[in-house]
């Protein structure tokens, strides 16, 4: 059995760890609430943007923008969004394994990452990372996404790149966290029943309008993916911290039982020592 001071030291250490995990859990709960609300509000914008975009594409007719062209053969770019920090349970593990399977399926993959976890994972697997983007936080605005769009449009303009996809963790309050892949480029119109009901007029020209609309559409898509991924990260961290707090509670209970047992043992030993000593003294007097 461990000594009393050793057990006391362990109780203090576990208690301190519990305090940290509890604080992290509370922070994650607050962040999840804030971000899931932001996600819900964003979905209105995202849904409208998608319907407007598919409407524009369906009515554009024969005219084709370079971002709408299917190039046939070429390289595939994968933009993998992971977390920067650990302590998120199986969040990165599930996402990165899903991303790896998608990357391995492609012929000539190019990998771009967001978050240090994804970068170190692909480096360990021997896959080079072309670009690593800066951290995206819950304070980031949609303007912060413009640099991503600029980079991917430049990459797609190269003849060798066939498509650009985003791999991220989607979040829904019903299904929880699950990895997902979305094709960013080339942009494809969704099938709609009401085709060519009326001609659409572009002010000033179709080229200029689509040159402005497409980057905005892409920044909206990427912003949505980053927002969902961030919400998933905090949701996973909250779950991980919740189980860590429960484990710490269990460990503390076990340790306090062990401590009480050891203390009782020490007291019993002391009493028996005293009784033995008293008996010895009384024997001497007799």
């Amino acid at each position, binding site marked *: 059995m461990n000594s009393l001071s050793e057990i006391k030291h362990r109780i203090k250490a576990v208690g301190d760890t519990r305090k940290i995990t509890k604080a992290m859990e509370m922070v994650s709960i607050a962040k999840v609430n804030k971000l899931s609300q932001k996600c819900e509000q964003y979905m209105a914008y995202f849904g409208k943007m998608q319907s407007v975009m598919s409407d524009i594409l369906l009515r554009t007719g024969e005219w084709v923008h370079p971002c709408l062209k299917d190039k046939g053969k070429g390289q595939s770019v994968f933009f993998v969004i992971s977390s920067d920090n650990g302590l998120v349970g199986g969040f990165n593990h599930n996402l990165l394994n899903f991303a790896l399977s998608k990357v391995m399926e492609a012929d000539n993959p190019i990998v771009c990452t967001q978050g240090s976890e994804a970068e170190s994972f692909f480096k360990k697997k021997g896959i080079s990372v072309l670009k690593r983007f800066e951290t995206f936080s819950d304070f980031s605005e949609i303007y912060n996404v413009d640099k991503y769009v600029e980079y991917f449009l430049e990459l797609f303009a190269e003849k060798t790149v066939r498509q650009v996809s985003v791999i991220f963790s989607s979040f829904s309050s019903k299904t929880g966290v699950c990895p997902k892949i979305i094709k960013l480029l080339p942009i494809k119109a969704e099938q709609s029943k009401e085709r060519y009901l009326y001609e*659409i*007029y572009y002010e000033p020209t179709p080229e200029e309008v689509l040159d402005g609309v497409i980057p905005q559409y892409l920044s909206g898509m990427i912003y949505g993916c980053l927002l969902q991924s961030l919400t998933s990260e905090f949701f996973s961290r909250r779950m991980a911290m919740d189980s860590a707090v429960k484990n710490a509670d269990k460990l503390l209970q076990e340790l306090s039982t062990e401590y009480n047992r050891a203390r009782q043992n020490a007291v019993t030993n002391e009493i028996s020592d005293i009784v033995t000593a008293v008996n010895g003294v009384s024997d001497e007097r007799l």
Partner: protein
Amino acid sequence: MRNSFMLEIITPEKIFFSGDVEEMIINASSGEVEIMHHTLPMVTNIAPGLISIVQNGRKMEAVCSDGFMRVGDSVTSVLVKGCKWPYEISEKDAGSEIKILNERIKNVQSVGEYKTLKAKLAMAIAQLKVLHRKD
């Protein structure tokens, strides 16, 4: 209202405005555009600036950032990155943002960053404009 149309102004943060309006004047990339009932269906880019809306004969003004607009048969949708009513604007904040953006524009490293900063600057200037117009 017979001569009205449905207008939606949506930003990533919220549905900024949704309702039947008689008229809307917005700053498109090629100049100011006035949208009324039965305007030809069209798509255009929006430059940062003022939006004025007439609802039930009452004129309202707001400041919007860059985005795009689709005028449909029944609904006109304006999708912008940000939009503010005059009472949401602080002159002090807008002024300090202009100063910061002017400094950042001097050290830009890419065309995309320059465009983003220019759009933010135009939005901040439009905010000051609408405040002074109100006075």
